[in-house]
């Protein structure tokens, strides 16, 4: 390529980048804002295809927090703007697309921090890119422990568990990644506690979808269940979701070995809830089916079909509906966003992420004597977050970037009783996920 053509090509790329920023970006809220200028918060979430149901409600939460702040005059005189990008390719979250999006955000000097991503494998691709330029990231939903800390050598350490560890993701050695959600290593124990202590089950069989998340929560479930005195009747079974349609051989073996319930580490898209549907006819209808946040979905209720009631799922997050102080925010949100898919489990965590970033930006502006801070200054302030009163309650970040509270929420699926409030229900309002309990696992 000649020099002239190379110049032309790079010019074209620059134009394309600007255009796509202009098209892809959506500005958050209106409001009066401040007069000193604009500061951008980047957002990277899966916004299209089947995963739009994850990304759109979360972005709404971010936009709503920013709008409320701008209505109050912005942050220290600066108007906050939201630039949102989509990391889904063909309807599925894509790590490479995520990393590209971060590059795109880094190209604008106004972007001082970002919210996202939604999926842990996308985070693993994005953190190193953002890390080199000190871009703060804060995720409402990532739960893979290895993004922030090592996992026990019992599970082979992080390189074995996830293929990366916190150190390998942070080339500069300084942390730039934070999250409000808890980590998966507590999800298994939370369900084990419930099974053994509340459901009084002593024998289970455990399977997983052969992915890091599923295998991880399954292993931590087994460890805790055995510690409590329970018995796992079969060795952990890994099922490749692409080649397995029939889980009945496993279920039949489990029943044969005396299992009273099944724990399955996996996601609905990896057929976790097909396992539940196939329990019918092999297990009594009352036998519980347990799993992590990958099953606390409407899709799971649909997949489990007539066997949908009687599942127990954990999430590594605080349920906003259970936080009394969040009530006013949720009500105000519903006044502005009236569509039935506008609100989701991660709307309020998205809101909290935006709050945390704007708080850090505010402090960085102060530290910079009122002028526009650098990304590094924002990162320093975000890392110092201590007892900040977010919509989800007080947030303190530890040195790894984790929330000092590790709240695990437990949900149960049951036939809908119209007098109760459900996290989610199927379209025909027959079955829904209802909150059971929550517990802080940060000390265990």
């Amino acid at each position, binding site marked *: 390529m000649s020099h002239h053509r190379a110049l032309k090509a790079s010019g074209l790329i620059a134009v394309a980048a600007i255009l796509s920023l202009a098209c892809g970006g959506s500005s958050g809220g209106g409001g009066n804002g401040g007069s000193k200028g604009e500061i951008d918060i980047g957002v990277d979430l899966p916004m299209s295809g089947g995963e739009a149901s994850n990304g759109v409600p979360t972005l709404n939460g971010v936009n709503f927090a920013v709008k409320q702040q701008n209505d109050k005059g912005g942050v220290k005189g600066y108007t906050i703007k939201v630039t949102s990008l989509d990391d889904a390719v063909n309807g599925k979250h894509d790590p490479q697309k995520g990393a590209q999006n971060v590059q795109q955000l880094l190209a604008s000097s106004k972007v001082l921090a970002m919210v996202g991503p939604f999926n842990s494998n996308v985070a693993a691709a994005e953190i190193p890119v953002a890390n080199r330029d000190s871009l703060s990231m804060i995720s409402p939903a990532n739960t893979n422990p290895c993004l922030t800390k090592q996992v026990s050598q019992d599970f082979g350490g992080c390189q074995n568990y996830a293929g990366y560890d916190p150190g390998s993701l942070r080339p500069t050695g300084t942390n730039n990644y934070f999250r409000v959600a808890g980590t998966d290593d507590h999800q298994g124990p939370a369900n084990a506690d419930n099974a053994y202590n509340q459901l009084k089950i002593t024998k289970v069989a455990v399977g997983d979808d052969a992915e890091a998340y599923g295998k991880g929560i399954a292993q931590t479930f087994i460890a805790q269940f055995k510690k409590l005195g329970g018995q796992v009747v079969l060795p952990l079974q890994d099922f490749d979701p692409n080649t397995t*349609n*029939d889980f009945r051989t496993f279920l*039949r073996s489990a029943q044969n070995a005396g299992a009273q319930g099944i724990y399955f580490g996996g996601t609905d898209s990896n057929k976790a*809830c097909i396992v539940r*549907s196939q329990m*019918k006819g092999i297990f009594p209808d009352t036998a519980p089916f347990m799993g992590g946040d990958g099953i606390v979905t409407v899709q799971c209720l649909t997949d489990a079909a007539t066997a949908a009631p009687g599942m127990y799922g954990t999430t590594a997050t605080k349920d906003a509906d259970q936080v009394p102080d969040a009530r006013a925010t949720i009500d105000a949100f519903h006044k502005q966003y009236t569509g039935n898919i506008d609100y989701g489990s991660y709307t309020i965590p998205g809101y909290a992420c935006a709050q945390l970033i704007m708080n850090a930006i505010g402090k960085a502006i102060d530290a910079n004597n009122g002028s526009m801070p650098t990304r590094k200054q924002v990162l320093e302030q975000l890392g110092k977050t201590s007892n900040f009163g977010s919509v989800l309650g007080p947030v303190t970040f530890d040195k790894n970037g984790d929330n000092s509270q590790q709240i695990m929420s437990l949900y149960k699926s049951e036939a809908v009783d119209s007098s109760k409030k459900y996290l989610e229900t199927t379209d025909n309002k027959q079955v829904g996920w209802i909150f059971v309990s929550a517990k802080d696992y940060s000390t265990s």
Partner: protein
Amino acid sequence: MGEAGAGLSPNSPSEWLVFSAVEKTGRLERGPRDVPPGLRTVRQVRAVLGGRLGTWLLAILAVLVIGLVVVPKVVAGGYGFFVQILAFGVANGAIFALIALGYTMVYGIIELINFAHGDVFTLGAFVSLPLLSAFGLVEGKSSGAGLWFGLLAVFAITMLIIGVLNMLIERVAYRPLRHAPRLAPLITAVGMSFILEGIMYVWRGAFNIHYPDLLPGQRLPIGEGASIGVKDVLVVVVAVVLVGLFSIFIARSRLGKAMRATAQDRDAAALVGIDIDQTISATFFLGAILAAAGGIIFGLYFNSVRFDQGFEAGLIAFTAAVFGGIGNIPGAALGGLIIGLIQAFSNAYFQAAWTDVVIFAILILVLVFRPTGLLGMAVPQK
């Protein structure tokens, strides 16, 4: 067919394959006498393994493994459990067999690995979904004669739609390339597969789609307190009936005879007045109606379908076809059945993570000892 290639006079199918490969590529220009001693030994060993001795060795090995590894586990697991696993395995195998037949027929007649066939199978399930509701078949509400006649109608209409569609695919994507280099139709087949998946993805999304659970949920007692599902039995019966009807059709009907003739020698078949295009079209039609039936049965049996499930199911079914001897219709059915059984037994008595390893290890062993598959290949002779 092993006796082809008189000049080289090989005496076993595997040796014939080695020689024909050399003939075709033209890259190895040495005659058999110039072969270095090491390679000659390898060939001799392969020739021996590929012969009758190999088959015996394989049979002995199979009996040993089953006797020493599987039987003790089965005995420990109990009778009822064994029968249940057997039923699961046969039912899964029956579905694989339905798909495998389409692969094997198309390969037998035009030597094309029709990668789109797995997706034709999925499309069968997808197309039948709206038809089920059109016929008023609703989960938990339909039963008796209405259910059975409704299902029969859904089967018939879906099979017809998918059959015609597959003929169109052949007309558009494969026929114009019939005399093109072998890779060209292979790539259009891969392309067709992606197109079909894309259409189903856009149509219904990237989720598991619930397929109504219409079949009776009763269980048949089989003694000692054990029972197997009516569903399992139904799936097997329907598949066996379909494969049976189909085999009779191929063996007895005029069209079946034309298909076999075209498969054996296309030019000679054309010389005796067989319409080759029509016969190949019919092959795609028949392959597709079996796949469509397989798709509906899969849906009714597992109650969940997804736009991309055909890729893996197709791969397993293709494996089944090679296992049984590609081009060989009873072979494909047998291959499907065996893979279904291996899957079920491996999942039930051993680690599920090893299941694919076990299936393909067995496949490799079978092909080493019997390169033409369990029942022998039946592909066009040149």
